[in-house]
């Protein structure tokens, strides 16, 4: 029988989180000693039947109170800052990451790789490479929890959330859904499979996806009729989409928004919400026509469009 205390440390983030955890553990032990040692001593020394000096002493009460207010305050602030720094590290994906899409659904995880590979409840990644997950849900809120990497992020319907990690070792690690999502919540589990770069390449090719995510998106772009207005000469004027991703977009309201995933998603589902300056809203909604997977394909396609105009 074993009593494991720490999950495996699969990333540098995990090592640092454990360090803060141990720091907090030391702080806790110290506070317990400060409280419990005098308490037990008093219980023994001043128990009712025990003779002891009980003459009341005038203590400098305010000084004592200020001391035990300020010392914890400063110590707490130090831990606050330490953990906050780690949070910034965890929450902000580095720029040069490999993007993989995750779609949560009662009760499975659907994964889309940029090369077009798709998998369910398994996430194959190359070792030593920063992986950024772009996540959404097609029904309720889920949470993508990788305990060995000490990270989790809620997967929320109607928005894209992100989570990143860099696996340090080859191996298989847990994926748990950690936001209650209904009947089979505890079955919404899977594995991260960390492979060597060569094995990963082989795995990608063996999957024979046929077309990349962006290519699938391009096909959809034609099938849904988007290209009719957004590309080439057309009676309906629509903003050109080449190189739009990541650029500021001026709106009719005078605001300027950044064309990120959320903006593109909203523009497809709720075209009337944000109208590009110089245009009128002639676009129908595609809310009931495209699935979350297809939306991500379309976004991958739009991202792939260069600035060739």
């Amino acid at each position, binding site marked *: 029988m074993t009593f494991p205390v720490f999950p495996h440390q699969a990333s540098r983030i995990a090592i640092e989180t454990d360090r803060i955890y141990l720091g907090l553990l030391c702080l806790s032990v110290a506070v317990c000693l400060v409280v419990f040692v005098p308490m037990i001593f008093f219980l023994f020394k001043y128990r009712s039947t025990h003779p002891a000096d009980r003459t009341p002493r005038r203590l400098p009460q305010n000084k004592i109170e200020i001391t035990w*207010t300020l010392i914890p305050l400063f110590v707490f602030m130090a831990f606050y800052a330490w953990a906050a720094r780690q949070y910034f590290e965890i929450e902000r994906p580095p720029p040069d990451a490999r993007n993989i899409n995750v779609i949560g659904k009662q009760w499975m995880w659907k994964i889309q790789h940029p090369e077009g590979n798709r998998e369910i409840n398994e996430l194959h990644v190359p070792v030593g490479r920063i992986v950024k997950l772009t996540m959404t849900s097609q029904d309720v809120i889920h949470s993508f929890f990788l305990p060995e990497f000490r990270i989790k992020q809620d997967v929320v319907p109607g928005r894209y959330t992100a989570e990143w990690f860099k696996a340090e070792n080859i191996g298989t690690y847990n994926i748990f859904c950690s936001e209650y999502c209904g009947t089979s919540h505890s079955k919404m589990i899977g594995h991260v499979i960390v492979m060597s770069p060569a094995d990963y390449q082989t795995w990608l090719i063996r999957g024979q996806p046929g077309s990349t995510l962006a290519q699938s998106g391009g096909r959809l772009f034609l099938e849904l009729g988007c290209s009719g207005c957004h590309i080439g000469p057309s009676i309906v004027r629509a903003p050109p989409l080449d190189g739009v991703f990541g650029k500021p977009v001026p709106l009719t309201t005078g605001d300027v928004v950044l064309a990120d995933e959320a903006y593109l998603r909203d523009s497809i589902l709720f075209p009337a919400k944000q109208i590009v300056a110089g245009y009128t809203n002639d676009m129908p909604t595609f809310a009931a026509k495209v699935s979350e997977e297809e939306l991500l394909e379309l976004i991958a396609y739009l991202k792939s469009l260069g600035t060739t105009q």
Partner: protein
Amino acid sequence: MITAVPQTDIPRPSLAPRRLSNYFEEGGRTLASWLLTTDHKRIGLLYLYSIIVYFIIAAFAAALIRIELITPAGDLVTSETYNKLFTIHGTLMVWFFLIPSVPAVLGNFVLPLMLGARDVAFPKLNLLSWYLFNLGGLMALYAVAFGGADTGWTFYTPYSSTYSHSHVVTMAAGVFIAGFGSILTGLNFIITIHKMRAPGLTWFRLPLFVWSLYSTSVILVLATPVLAMTLALMSLERIWGLGVFDPKLGGDPVLFQHLFWFYSHPAVYIMILPGMGVVSELIPCFSRKPIFGYHFIAFSSVAIAVLGFLVWGHHMFVSSESIYAGLVFSLLSYLVAVPSAIKVFNWTMTMYRGRIYLSTPFLYALGFIGLFTIGGLTGLFLAALGVDVHVHGTYFIIAHFHYIMVGGMVTAFMGGLHYWWPKITGRLYPENLGRLAALIMFIGFNLTFFPQFVVGYLGMPRRYHSYAPEFQIYNVLSTAGASILGIGYLLPLIYFIWSLKHGRRAPSNPWKATGLEWQTSSPPPKHNFHETPVVTEEPYQYSPVPEQRLIYG
């Protein structure tokens, strides 16, 4: 603390027993005399009976959960049933046991006595609160009996508003209705404390229990309406597709979390502040010392109540809330830990040069300090942003809040119940059994919940019907602990009932305690005092010398 005027004539009616001088006899013993009573003491007892019923049902759900979790496979009940069990457990325990436990039972009983008042400010409103509370409770039980809800006590959208196929609206309606009882109780207490204090009982002569009830009442009045609105919006979306929270209808599911925790984080303090108040009564009494740092403890209650409103976002660090919001909420969460630490230090310091009697209520107070300290310290882990990303939504948080709510609040409730039992019933409970039960509860509690910190850090998510085999050993320990804890709860239930008939008769002041509630007979007459007491001294005027004979100790 208190002397009555004239000083030579401290009212001690119990010394000259008159048959009709207590609240059990006055007004009659009929069912109607209880169901239509406006006596705060009887209403306190009505609350006690009701919360015991809800507690037993919720504890039964917990027992089934713990038995299910002995093995990694979900093999005892189906997933649907399991999800309903933890929903029943959480909903009933939070709203129908913990929130009313100390305020509505002990608070109702002793607050007017502590103030030297005949009753609360609005006795009829007080009875109405009890009826609303039970109307809500019966609604929740109706939902349970006819299939239950499976949303968890948190009712997160859009699962609750759109996807769940269970009795969500009925369950929420139960909580909604009971909330009005909470609001009215809070209102009643605030006004009572402002307007009904005995002559000479200035704010800084109030027992600290009153300060904690005051802070709690402010939270009840300010926060509960937000819960009511939130649950109403959720229900309207479920019934008519209102579109506030479901993104498919143009809503925002995370908004629900903001609204829910804006109530429910302060509610966490509803579930601990009154317990701190009880402990602030017990520590000086059984240490025979004035409490150390009276003003600091009193104002720390207020500080907790105020700061408690500003930390709700720490439940949402991984919800997709802005990381800058996370920074602020984490900072405020660390700040709110400071007043809690101040209380613990002051309680410990009170024992210095005291004369300590290890009676049952004091054992509970010590248990409270120990368990609350661990609960509070693990709160620092959860408030730490980078660490919370890992432990959020795991058994770590389950262990943490059980240390606060059960280790803290239930322990304090048991301590208070033993302390005031002679006053409430006029009978003494068996002391040795009392100490034994306190010990069993302490051991059982730690064995149940300490392993959950470890298994939480290992990564076991909460609300999992089946789990990975590497988590099993800690779940087995937890279940073993829960069975011990169960015995710890059963024991007082038995000996308290036994003591009603067979316990020794209690004197007016078995603990030689200060505080107006001990100046009247046990049990008190219907209108509490034959003469309105006048207060001329500071609170907690205990002295460690010479040795005093308490009834037990």
